[in-house]
């Protein structure tokens, strides 16, 4: 079964589905939705099979496939997944059907074609899977850029207030990052002996100066994508304007391409430059944690608030990556998964609230828990997960990042920990102003607020809630997959974990 070309099939399948959905007649939106949902469930089923086929403790890269594409430039369709990519692929395959289900009525409110909305979601899934599955730098770049197009139209055509502005800003920011990366990709191709194969490139010795420039080209692209402070300003706009489902994918998965790219490309390909730039990257991460959390506290727009919390979380991931200990890096990867689940859930729930109320402003809510208790409960749960309450999955990842960082860099760990307190502030305050307290009389007049979660919405939130709790108590299945890949990455940059400072065996025997 391991010979099956999982990765290429997984990449192509959603695209085929998108074409099918796009040609469905515009008059029959229900059919388009059902086909899209069914197709994404097929992709999920295939990914589950892939997960089961994965050999824990096997090679670092598995499911490798390679087909020639442009021999003149040494470009191949090379796919391969390590543990980090595998968990991200699972996250995508899981989130897309949920997002499709959650967005069931989203596209109807706009005047645009409903089938096209779902086709775009499937195209997005294709590009997201491709970007994580690629093991050829050129192919990675292609998916990295093409990914913008469906997201651009999702935000621009189906988004809310200020969608045009947000869509253009999103596109331009990402394109600018991408073009920096293009220059670095071309440079890497030249110094690396005209090959794009990741495995070959990671063996190449690059002179110090060139390595730093190339690192910077990739880093800027990923820092914009992730986004890290100070490249983050597009995310609140995009997240605020995008339809909730697209926003969940944007923050839950798309942005992870940035942090994934750091782990897969920046660190192994340019290890010395990575070490040289690490203090700067750590500084950006720490600033992001504190700054974004402060801004989140001040937001009055639910979707923008969630976007800012994500920027703070990306700061944690960045710290985890550049601390260069296996605990912190494992924490960072786990964080990527857990954040996808928790923030994905938070965005979807906020989307349900906003759809009912017709407004995303916190001040338009107040005491909503009295009208829609179940929805308010899920919002509270998602918020708690987002602030990394022990018992939820994000706690484990955040804790790993912090202790992994503390063992090598105490000041950074200490400041980052302050972010945990701020996280409690912005989440709890948001929940309090939205669902607790006295009932806002205006709310009772809104028709939508009289309906609590329906069956479709329960089906959307239930798997996410379950997974967050499950991984909060038993993250082993995921960490088992992640750990070897993280160890290998640490080896690539030649960092070993510091020995425990207290009670080494020699001291104990004395």
């Amino acid at each position: 079964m391991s010979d099956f070309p999982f990765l290429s099939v997984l990449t192509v399948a959603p695209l085929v589905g998108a074409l099918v959905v796009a040609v469905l007649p515009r008059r029959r939106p229900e059919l388009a939705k059902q086909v899209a949902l069914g197709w994404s469930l097929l992709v999920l089923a295939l990914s589950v099979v892939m997960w089961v086929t994965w050999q824990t403790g096997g090679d670092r890269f598995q499911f490798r496939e390679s087909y020639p594409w442009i021999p003149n430039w040494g470009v191949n369709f090379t796919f391969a997944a390590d543990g980090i990519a595998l968990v991200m692929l699972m996250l995508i395959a899981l989130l897309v059907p949920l997002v499709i289900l959650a967005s069931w009525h989203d596209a109807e409110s706009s005047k645009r074609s409903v089938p096209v909305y779902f086709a775009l979601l499937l195209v997005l899934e294709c590009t997201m899977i491709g970007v994580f599955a690629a093991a050829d730098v050129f192919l990675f770049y292609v998916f990295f850029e093409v990914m913008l197009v469906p997201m651009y139209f999702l935000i621009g055509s189906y988004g809310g207030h200020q969608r045009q502005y947000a869509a253009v800003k999103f596109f331009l920011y990402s394109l600018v990052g991408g073009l920096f990366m293009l220059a670095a990709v071309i440079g890497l191709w030249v110094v690396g002996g005209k090959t794009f194969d990741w495995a070959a490139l990671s063996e190449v010795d690059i002179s110090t100066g060139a390595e730093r420039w190339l690192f910077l080209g990739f880093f800027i692209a990923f820092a914009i994508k992730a986004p890290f402070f100070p490249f983050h300003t597009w995310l609140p706009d995009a997240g605020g304007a995008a339809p909730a489902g697209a926003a969940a994918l944007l923050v839950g998965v798309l942005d992870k391409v940035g942090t994934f790219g750091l782990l897969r490309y920046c660190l192994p390909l340019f290890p010395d430059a990575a070490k040289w730039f690490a203090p700067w990257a750590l500084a950006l991460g720490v600033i992001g944690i504190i700054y974004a959390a402060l801004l989140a506290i001040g937001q009055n727009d639910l979707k923008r608030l969630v976007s800012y919390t994500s920027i703070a979380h990306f700061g944690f991931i960045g710290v985890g990556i550049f601390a260069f200990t296996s605990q912190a890096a494992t924490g960072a990867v786990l964080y990527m998964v857990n954040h996808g689940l928790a923030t994905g859930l938070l965005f979807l729930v906020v989307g349900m609230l906003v759809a009912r109320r017709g407004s995303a402003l916190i001040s338009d809510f107040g005491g909503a828990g009295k009208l829609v208790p179940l929805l308010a409960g899920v919002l509270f749960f998602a918020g708690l997960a987002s602030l990394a309450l022990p018992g939820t999955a994000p706690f484990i990842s955040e804790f790993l990042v912090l202790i992994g960082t503390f063992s090598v860099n105490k000041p950074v760990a200490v400041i980052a920990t302050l972010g945990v307190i701020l996280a409690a502030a912005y989440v709890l305050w948001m929940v309090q102003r939205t669902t607790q307290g006295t009932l806002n009389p205006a709310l009772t007049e809104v028709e939508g607020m009289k309906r609590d979660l329906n069956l479709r919405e329960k089906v959307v939130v239930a798997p996410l809630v379950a997974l967050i709790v499950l991984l909060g108590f038993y993250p082993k299945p995921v960490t088992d997959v992640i750990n070897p890949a993280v160890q290998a990455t640490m080896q690539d940059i030649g960092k070993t974990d510091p020995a425990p400072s207290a009670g080494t065996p020699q001291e104990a025997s004395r």
Partner: protein
Amino acid sequence: MSELKLPSIDYAALAPTLILLGAALVGVLVEAFVPRRRRHVVQLAVALLAVLGALTMVVLNANDRLITIGGAIAIDGPALFLQGAILVLAAMALLLIGERSVERGGAFVAQAAVTAESADDRRQAEGAPGATEVYPLISFAVGGMLIFVAANDLLTMFISLEVLSLPLYLLCALARRRRLLSQEAAMKYFLLGAYASAFFLFGVALVYGFTAGTPGRTAGVDFATIHAAVAESPSSSVLLFGGMALIAIGLLFKAGAAPFHVWTPDVYQGAPTPITGFMAACTKVAAFGALLRVFHVAFEGARWDFTPVLGAVAVLTMLVGAVLAVTQTDIKRLLAYSSIANAGYLLVGVLAPTSDGVSGTMFYLVAYGFSVLAAFAVVTLVRDADGEATHLSRWAGLGQRSPFYAGLFTFILLAFAGIPLTSGFTSKFAVFSAAFDGGQGWLVIAGVLTSMVLAFPYLRVVVLMWLSEPGESTPAVVMPGWLTSAALTIGVVATLVLGVFPQPLLDLAAGAAEFVR
């Protein structure tokens, strides 16, 4: 007294040019003898057949590597590749030029001599069949281009420059609507073009003086002699640098590179749109073909001297094109500035000192030609009662009125912006990687930075078409006739195929990248 010896002439190798020029003459006769109502069909058929026949001859000659007709013409890889490219793109342009169902009578004025804005003029604008002189003029221009890219000495190059330019000046003046704008464009193009030609000629004279050098040396303006002279440096290099600069000015003018670009927006806007497309595609190929030949064959030895200067021109061109494109409000002017910026990217390829640079530039020329012709094909379709609606505000909400054509145009714009899976990306990669490999990393950085700026105007059009609500004045897209449909389809399909499977054309270009000297 020595006998007068005729140079040997390889007629097969020259056949493409001869066919085109012959067809042009036939076209003039058709104009004289065929009844007016049949002329359009006959002329179009003659021109198309000639182009296709010439293309067949180019394909048959594909393995020729020779210099013929007394050293005036070099038929080598780049010449054949570029001739093929010009002919394919010219065939596409002819399809646009021949279209008559989009507008009654076609895009061209019936009688160019009628005073603009007069009563007669208004009458003829209502649907009198357009002038059919267009076809012989196009044939002459294409014939000139075919010589231009194969010229092996500077005088042949100059003559072919004139052969290709004069018909273009005329063609620019033949728009059916907005005739004053069209005539102004032609006048500007002519005056500046004549000026540039004079620069070129003066440069030829200086280079001739340079090769003469010490008494007794054989002087000449053929590329082999110039190459040898550059290596030996028989006389003051002031002559060489002066000549090189003046020749470069003449060629860069045709290529639309800054600071010799000022004619481009006005001419692109005023000329009939099919002619604009023809110029953007075919003239670019011809101009860059000549630039490649002059700087890779004749002046190759002076590479260290001209690269910084031409590099600065390339950076300036990219910058001017990208920055000024941002402020445009007319789609044709926007595409004109975009073509200026693209001239800058092409120059990056020209400056890469390897055969990869040559093949990358040639690949870029073909890819860009297909896309830009398709873009102008869409421009001809967006129209109302007064002709084409080129002001950008009129394109608002086009995506809802005509999603299919707006979708095609969006795809082309994404290609211009260099998004992967379009030919715009592969061609940029081809020239940038060649330049980086050739040690011109600074040009790549400049190219990447200007691409960022240039993405904005393209994106603005996409936003207008899809994300804005259609206004009162948003015209619908006219259903194209089969000619325009064919051209549009070819352009869009080529943009996609060259973006996804560029390998065959890359192979072809790589196999055709060696010049003969």
